[in-house]
């Protein structure tokens, strides 16, 4: 069972084995953007193996920028801690199919960079 101590189960704790893998690096972020329709206009794919191609390079920066814009984050196109935290928030599994139009980039960024400390701990999402 999932562990709890309160009579009303309000302190239910999921098993560590059942926790979603945090989105903490570039690859995970790419998968997120692809899964939820931020990279290409994607259909509701019937199989994970047929996910649309993950965005890379300029396309990735653009996708990140659009994601940041709708989440009221500075649209830098870079995978900073705030952007990763937004990706880790509880969300619905349906892709965001109606995306806002791409914003004009202020600078061209060939490859998005992970900001902040290089240690994975600094990119850990906040506890729910």
């Amino acid at each position: 069972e999932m562990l709890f101590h309160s009579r009303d189960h309000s302190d239910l704790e999921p098993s560590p084995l059942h926790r979603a893998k945090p989105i903490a690096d570039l690859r995970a972020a790419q998968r997120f953007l692809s899964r939820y329709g931020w990279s290409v206009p994607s259909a509701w794919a019937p199989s994970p193996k047929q996910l649309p191609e993950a965005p890379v390079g300029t396309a990735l920066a653009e996708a990140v920028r659009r994601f940041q814009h709708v989440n009221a984050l500075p649209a830098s196109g870079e995978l900073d801690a705030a952007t990763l935290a937004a990706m880790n928030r509880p969300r619905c599994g349906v892709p965001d199919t109606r995306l806002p139009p791409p914003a004009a980039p202020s600078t061209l960024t060939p490859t998005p960079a992970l900001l902040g400390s290089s240690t994975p701990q600094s990119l850990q999402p906040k506890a729910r």
Partner: protein
Amino acid sequence: SKRFLQMLLPGPGRQREDSPAGGAARIFSKKTLSWRLLGEAYSSQLSVDEQRSVFRLAFRMWSEVTPLDFREDLTSPGATVDIKLGFGRGRHLGCPRVFDGSGQEFAHAWRLGDIHFDEDEHLTLPTSDRGISLLKVAVHEIGHVLGLPHTYRTGSVMQPNYTPQEPAFELDWSDRKAIQKLYGSCQGSFDTVFDWIHKERTQYGEVRVRFSTYFFRKSWYWLYENRNNRTRYGDPSRIQAGWRGIPAQGIDAFVHVWTWRRDERYFFKGHRYWRYDSDQDQALTQDQQGRSYPELISQGFPGIPSPLDAAYFDRRQQQIYFFKEALVFAFDVNRNRVQSSYPMRMTEAFPAVVPHNHPVRAIDAAYYSYAQGSLFLFKGDAYWRVLNHRARQDNARLPANGLLPKRPISGAWPDICDVHSSTLNM
């Protein structure tokens, strides 16, 4: 694979394309949709009754703002149930989308199809301040099933990310309009419509008057909040629950005789009428004058036929106007008799301003609105507004008591929607 095919090839009553252009919204084409919480997919975090109760409320919230209604179906073959709900973790219920464990993705839904909740999430009842509200998630996912996409508009239930449930979680104006863009707005006739007057005393002893607007249809009713342009959240309710002692359905008319000396409220149905005591909030069995209720209309209002179509009290003239078929009767409440020049044809008493634009006969309701200072005649899903004194002062050529051209009721009083009868007692 079966689910994938189901998504592409929906069964009868499932799909309707609104536009031949690419990207047409696909929606259900039938009015009543069935749902079921799968027996093999209960959550272990809440009792089954709690889960079903939350889903029943979630469906009802959408039903209160659309022409759709939803019924829980526990008996039909599974393939015929329109929307199936279930909890699962990881690979679940034959679904091609895998859940990710606790955190991030908490649920998903298939348009025109099923809803899955991630059992690894801490999904809680609406009353809990912890975890993720199952109600809010369910309302969101049902929105997808009905055809709504995500939006980032503040306040929308269709935002992709979960925000903790507000104390008074409801569908906001934009969510209503979004779903009505797909399914249309609610239409329909009413049995009676009236403003109910509340009298209160302020701390200084002054009498203050407030009014509430009520719409009655069959065995249920709504309170309409004029300042919010919608019905009260949670309506409709059963007449039996809110109005004790009057007939449980099919009210013909309501009249409030309100003069300096009199304050009497009557409900009419068939050949009888009931007097309502607003202080005790129930129908009287006998009033202070010794009259017993229900009473025959012919006894209490000599010369008035029954059953009636509609009625209203004109405070200026101190007359009740009773409508039956193509005729209208003016009843003087002080002399307790029908005015000598009546009955009159409705087309004569309320002439059409635009020729032939007139209900002519058998109206459903006559409603005097204190908010708008006007009388309205209802028939079907349309209303005709009666010219009031002010309007004629601006244009004296208009006929007295003239009827302006008809308009849809849903334009002036939007979002008065039925729900499935099985959910009326919620």
